[in-house]
């Protein structure tokens, strides 16, 4: 029998290794798997590469991982946001690496990893600093940059509801990176607000089929 539900946040993040690449969902405050990130903080893995849209704000979630010197490198589209004080402090001190990736390319690189593709050419970033050192090819008269797939060892994702097969639906704009990150990681760990019975999710409206999900833990809506 398939049952991807786990009993605790500690079970959800068990086994994540030092040096892992961790994809963390969320955009601003929306769709951030806050409780999973805090569980990872408690779990202890360090020397992490974190792939995420923002570098956290204040003292919570990704900012806390950074503050505790658990993140070696962040792969990110918009690290400098209101309250991203820990990232900025460590970045200035040269204590954290930053790979800056345009937002659509960040998402598309994870999709390529999940889709088993070897990379793609995109016009985004051509003729800019972010194309430096990258292969550029003119396609249809326009310069394109070659971008590599970006797989994760682990993805931490927040969804709304799940069944025991790991099928997921999300809530409003909290969906953001979740469906793509779920495809791109070896181990996909999801926190949801509610478990439902198998068959209760409309098969036409499942957003992430359970094949992409390994563990699901329930966390009360905040």
């Amino acid at each position: 029998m398939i049952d991807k539900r786990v009993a605790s946040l500690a079970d959800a993040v068990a086994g994540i290794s030092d040096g892992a690449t961790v994809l963390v969902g969320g955009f601003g405050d929306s769709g951030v798997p806050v409780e999973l990130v805090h569980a990872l903080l408690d779990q202890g893995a360090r020397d992490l590469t974190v792939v995420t849209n923002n570098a956290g704000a204040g003292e919570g979630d990704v900012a806390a991982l950074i503050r505790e010197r658990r993140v070696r490198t962040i792969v990110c589209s918009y690290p400098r946001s209101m309250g991203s004080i820990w990232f900025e402090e460590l970045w200035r001190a040269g204590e954290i690496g930053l790979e800056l990736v345009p937002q659509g390319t960040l998402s598309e690189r994870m999709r390529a990893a999940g889709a088993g593709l070897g990379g793609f050419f995109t016009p985004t970033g051509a003729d800019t600093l972010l194309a430096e050192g990258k292969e550029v090819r003119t396609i249809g008269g326009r310069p394109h940059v070659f971008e590599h797939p970006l797989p994760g060892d682990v993805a931490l994702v927040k969804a709304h509801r799940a069944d025991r097969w790991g099928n997921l639906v999300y809530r409003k704009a909290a969906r953001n990176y979740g469906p793509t990150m779920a495809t791109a990681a070896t181990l996909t760990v999801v926190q949801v607000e509610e478990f439902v019975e198998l068959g209760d999710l409309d098969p036409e409206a499942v957003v992430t089929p359970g094949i992409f999900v390994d563990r699901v833990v329930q966390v009360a809506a905040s």
Partner: protein
Amino acid sequence: MIDPLSDVAVARRVARDIPDGAYVNLGIGMPILVGDVVGPDKEIVYHSENGILGMGPAPAPGEEDRELINAGKQPVTLLPGGSYFHHTDAFVMMRGGHIDISVLGAFQVSEGGDLANWITDVATMPPAVGGAMDLAVGARRVLVMTTHTTRDGRPKLLPRCTYPLTAAGVVDRVYTDLAVLDVGPVGFVVREMAPGLTRTELQSVTAARLTFADDVVELDPH
């Protein structure tokens, strides 16, 4: 005497160029104002790169949903006919040329249509790009909305950008507090000017060489 337009007046002018039924992405900052001044006679579908199509206005106080935010991380609403989708699909819409109009802010625009609107200084602040590059390369029409000069009076419309580029050769039209300019094969062509402004005055605050249309129109200052 130079009488620059207010931000809202510039927004009104931009709004006039948005046709009924258009799919529009409004960048963070000044461009957001455009949404408030589009007339009720037009049905515009607003896109947000975090995964929303059919964004409505800000919710009433107390009605905010932290998972329903726009790209600027402000609470929004969804109109009937709106939909949610994941991040990768949101950027398919942008990069794939499905957005009719992207309205962007700018630090600098070159006479070749190059846009610089993401960083001014790579040394002391961590760089952050977000969706700026995707918006600039992908929309069918890229409109820039900006003050004509910086706060300390330096020109923003230049022969060549001196700040790092967001994208090359993408800007179609620029709306400033002094003028409306098309970007064409001969560089900037002035279409409309603020009331009372002379061509010499406009050229004096513009580093790029201006061409004037045969029928330059006076901008409505309101």
